[in-house]
């Protein structure tokens, strides 16, 4: 039989028609959509075994307990640990994105430690009389902090500097409070340990005295809209009702309101007075209200080995003579308080001081230091977290690493100890051992949620648990009988007087941090207007007009400490005469507590 072309065509046509009756072509068509689903350049998340690991968040002194969901060992999300006695399972937005910090585009990856060490050696040798070597520790109280103190004790002219401790080192016992008066302190927005504050919230009546309706003011039981800069006058009048008339004048409240408030504080105690930056008048009011031993308690230092007790004392920057520091180490390897650079700079010698900063990026003191040495970033680092301000008992928590840091990171303790000719040892473990020796307190382990008295745990098990996610809480502290002297000592926090040069009062609208925050935080200030971006300020349109920046999106913020560029947001809810700022390193460099400022056109 002849096979003609026609036959072949018929066969092919019939085959095609028949194939249409099978699922094959339809599936192919649908599957063709797959290639349009993912283009190259869209990342594919890696898969792997899913495990939970535990640590503590090192981004602020709250040190909230963290449960990390890890895929093949890489943390992909963080959450709190429910039932944790300190943090009650509630991390904040910063903590929830902490696992992304190691990949921050501004993360420092390279430094010159050998050069820095050589420069330090040379400068230390050159130290003359009256000149000193200093460590500025922005997060005092850690095991590393003790290493610095011991190192500075080992060096002839060593000085250990730290920011002033909030409330002089006393702790707040929020659980005892029935009435809390906050003079601008962001009680519900980043103060203390958020989980602890919210757990205790139902127990106290919160009165927020603040010129601007902040987040805390919006949710407080009562918001007293006082005039900017009148917090001190109000505190004074609450202690001494005779000054109520002048306080009424200053704050804009009525005398009756002030007297009623004073009555409430005494009648509905125990009371607690908090202020945004340790106003002496607020501390005096606390004393008058008998807060000591109730809502304000002494908290003993977390135990340290006896060998460490020979350590340089903690001093504030202001206590050092000007132009006296030849070598300065700045440890910003863990987020902490920020001291304006101008306050630090004037303590440095005029001729070639050596400043070495240990940091996550060049954005902080790295802008001013000769050498910035990269350190491990949370959650790569290993550090203990000092107790939070609202923890009445001493606590010890280790932020244990969840991922390995990259190569060539510097360990500040090792570097500084070496420069001082000291062996840093394993400070963390030594401290853990010292705590264990004290036999006090309870260990709460996150993986199983159990609380165990310390005396029932062996030292090895104790150390292991601490590194796998746990917190040690001391037994209840015994309050001292009298108001301690250090709470009355002068601070750097005197409010600046009003001046025509700097007419605006600066307040912080957002939690203060000079540290890196995850790029994902842009959800809050770029993808929405919920929070303000770092280095921006909100001000009343009248203020903007008076400052000559009406309609401008950018301006220059100027204080006695310097100037920096900021973004500007007009906001009618900000009282005239005030600037609500969101801090970034540049702003923190020129704004301290109760700073006066002015805004000029860019």
């Amino acid at each position, binding site marked *: 039989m002849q096979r003609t072309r026609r036959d072949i065509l018929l066969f092919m046509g019939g085959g095609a028609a028949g194939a249409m009756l099978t699922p094959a072509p339809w599936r192919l*068509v*649908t599957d063709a*959509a797959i290639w*349009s689903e993912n283009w190259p350049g869209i990342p594919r998340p890696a898969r792997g075994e899913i495990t939970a690991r535990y640590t503590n968040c090192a981004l602020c002194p709250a040190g909230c307990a963290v449960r990390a969901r890890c895929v093949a060992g890489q943390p992909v999300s963080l959450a709190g640990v429910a039932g944790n006695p300190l943090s009650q399972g509630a991390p904040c937005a910063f903590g929830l994105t902490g696992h992304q910090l190691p990949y921050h585009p501004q993360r420092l990856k390279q430094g010159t430690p050998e050069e820095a060490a050589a420069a330090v050696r040379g400068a230390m040798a050159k130290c003359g009389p009256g000149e000193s070597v200093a460590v500025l520790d922005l997060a005092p109280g850690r095991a590393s902090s003790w290493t610095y103190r011991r190192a500075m004790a080992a060096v002839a002219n060593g000085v250990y500097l730290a920011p002033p401790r909030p409330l002089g080192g006393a702790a707040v016992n929020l659980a005892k409070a029935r009435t809390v008066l906050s003079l601008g302190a962001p009680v519900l927005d980043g103060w203390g340990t958020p989980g602890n504050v919210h757990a205790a919230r139902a127990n106290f009546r919160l009165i927020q005295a603040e010129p601007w309706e902040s987040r805390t003011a919006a949710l407080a039981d009562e918001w007293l809209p006082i005039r900017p800069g009148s917090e001190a006058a109000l505190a004074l009048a609450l202690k001494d009702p005779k000054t109520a008339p002048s306080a009424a004048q200053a704050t804009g409240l009525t005398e009756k309101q002030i007297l009623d408030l004073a009555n409430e504080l005494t009648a509905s105690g125990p009371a607690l007075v908090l202020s945004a930056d340790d106003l002496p008048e607020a501390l005096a009011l606390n004393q008058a209200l008998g807060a000591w031993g109730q809502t304000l308690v002494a908290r003993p230092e977390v135990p340290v080995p006896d060998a460490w007790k020979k350590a340089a004392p903690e001093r504030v920057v202001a206590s050092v003579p000007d132009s006296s520091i030849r070598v300065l180490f700045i440890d910003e390897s863990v987020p902490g308080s920020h001291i304006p650079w101008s306050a630090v700079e004037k303590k440095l010698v005029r001729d070639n001081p050596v400043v070495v900063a240990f940091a996550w990026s060049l954005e902080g003191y790295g802008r001013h230091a000769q050498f910035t040495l990269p350190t491990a970033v949370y959650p790569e680092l290993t550090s203990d977290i000092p107790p939070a301000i609202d923890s009445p008992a001493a606590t010890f928590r280790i932020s244990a690493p969840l991922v390995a840091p990259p190569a060539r990171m510097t360990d500040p303790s090792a570097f500084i100890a070496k420069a001082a000719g000291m062996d840093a040892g394993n400070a963390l473990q030594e401290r853990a051992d010292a705590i264990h020796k004290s036999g006090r307190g309870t260990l709460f382990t996150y993986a199983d949620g159990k609380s165990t008295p310390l005396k029932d745990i062996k030292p090895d098990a104790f150390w292991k648990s601490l590194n796998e996610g746990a917190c040690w809480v001391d037994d209840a502290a015994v309050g001292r009988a009298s108001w301690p002297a250090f709470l009355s000592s002068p601070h750097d926090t005197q409010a600046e007087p009003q001046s025509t040069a700097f007419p605006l009062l600066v307040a912080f609208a957002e939690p203060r941090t000079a540290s890196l925050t995850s790029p994902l935080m842009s959800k809050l200030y770029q993808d929405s207007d919920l929070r303000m971006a770092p280095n921006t300020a909100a001000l009343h349109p009248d203020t903007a007009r008076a400052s000559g920046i009406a309609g401008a999106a950018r301006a220059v913020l100027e204080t006695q400490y310097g100037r920096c560029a900021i973004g500007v947001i007009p906001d009618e809810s900000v009282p005239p005469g005030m600037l609500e700022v969101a801090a970034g390193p540049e702003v923190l460099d020129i704004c301290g507590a109760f700073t006066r400022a002015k805004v000029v056109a860019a």
Partner: protein
Amino acid sequence: MDREFITRGVKRCSGGKFLLWILPWVAMLIFGLYSAGLCLVKGLNQTNMDNRFAFGLWIFLDLTVIALGAGAFFTGFLLYILKMKELRAVINSAVVIGVVCYSGAMCALAVDVGQPLRFWFTFWYPNVHSMLTEVTFCITCYLTVLMIEYLPIVLKNRKLRDVPEFLVFQHELHKLIYVLAGVGTFLSFFHQGSLGGLYGVLRGRPFAFREGLAIWPSTFFLFILSAAAVGPSFVLLTTWLVEKISKKRLVRPEAMQMLGRISGLLLAVYVLLKTIDTLVWINRTSPGNGFPAAQYYAWHPFGTWILFTEIALLGMVPALILLTPKLRARTGWLVSAAAMACCGVALNRFVQTVQTLAVPTLSFDKFMTYTPSWQEVGTFLAVLAYGVLVYSFSFRYFQLFPDERELKLEVAQVEEEPALVGRY
């Protein structure tokens, strides 16, 4: 040099002059293609649309040109189904306008969607509840119909008709013209309506939401009616424009008058129904959804002036002009009224697209404004330039106006015998 491509018996300008005419439009097209290319390559972040203004300039223009292009189906309906012979003079031009409007709108849509390569999903996974599915199917079918209707015009080109197969093909095709016209009308009825239905079914947007008949909101019918009303006006307008630019007489005045009258009639009916619909919406539909209608017009710059302009100024006024024979007879009035009617429908599409999205729905929404970016404007200019170029080529090489030859002879006769004056 292209004489042999130009229809016998009519005069067209020289090749050089034609080149001068199309050059700026080509430049505009190139710029527009660059803008569209940017949007396709870099993504829709090149536009000023955002999560609040999900629809912007392009959707508004798509709706407007589709409404204006309705002249294609409606003229066909009037000519082939209702046998209004005068419209034979403009049917070809209307078809070209239709082709240009619909294909241009499709091209703009291809740039507007985020994933143009997935266009076939609507055909493969259609959602029978969605007006947009209906629109997609209908417009695709209708564009096919338009292309089939355009084909004979192309094939009747002086050179092309020398090919016997083409001649036979277009002759056979012409036998189907009634079927095509009927199908075209049917499809257009539905997609013009569904375009209105797009907004009328938005229960979440009380500004746009309307009650209606069964599953079709009132905007379904209003859109059809307004498209049918403005289609003839747009054909009229373009014919007048082409006459002016080419300095030729292309149609008899009767055809223009008829277009005007039909447009006016439909426009009047539309204005009446739209007024009723608006009153129902203001007094019942919108308040029933918890949205008092007054607040829509409290957001500057959308005041009640926009409602008045759309319905009265650019709706009732041109309708009345077009229905008055004395005014209709005067070219100035006729063309102005037609232009006003077109603007009125454009305003209606704008209100449905942009104002719907601008007015807040949540009590804490801000009122936001939207200005198209240059890339968006550029893409639209590409569509415009494309339309002008296709029409220009069609006008030059195809017989768009069958009465042109006769009218040319008449004019010649008049010129020879100036005493015999016959003007309209």
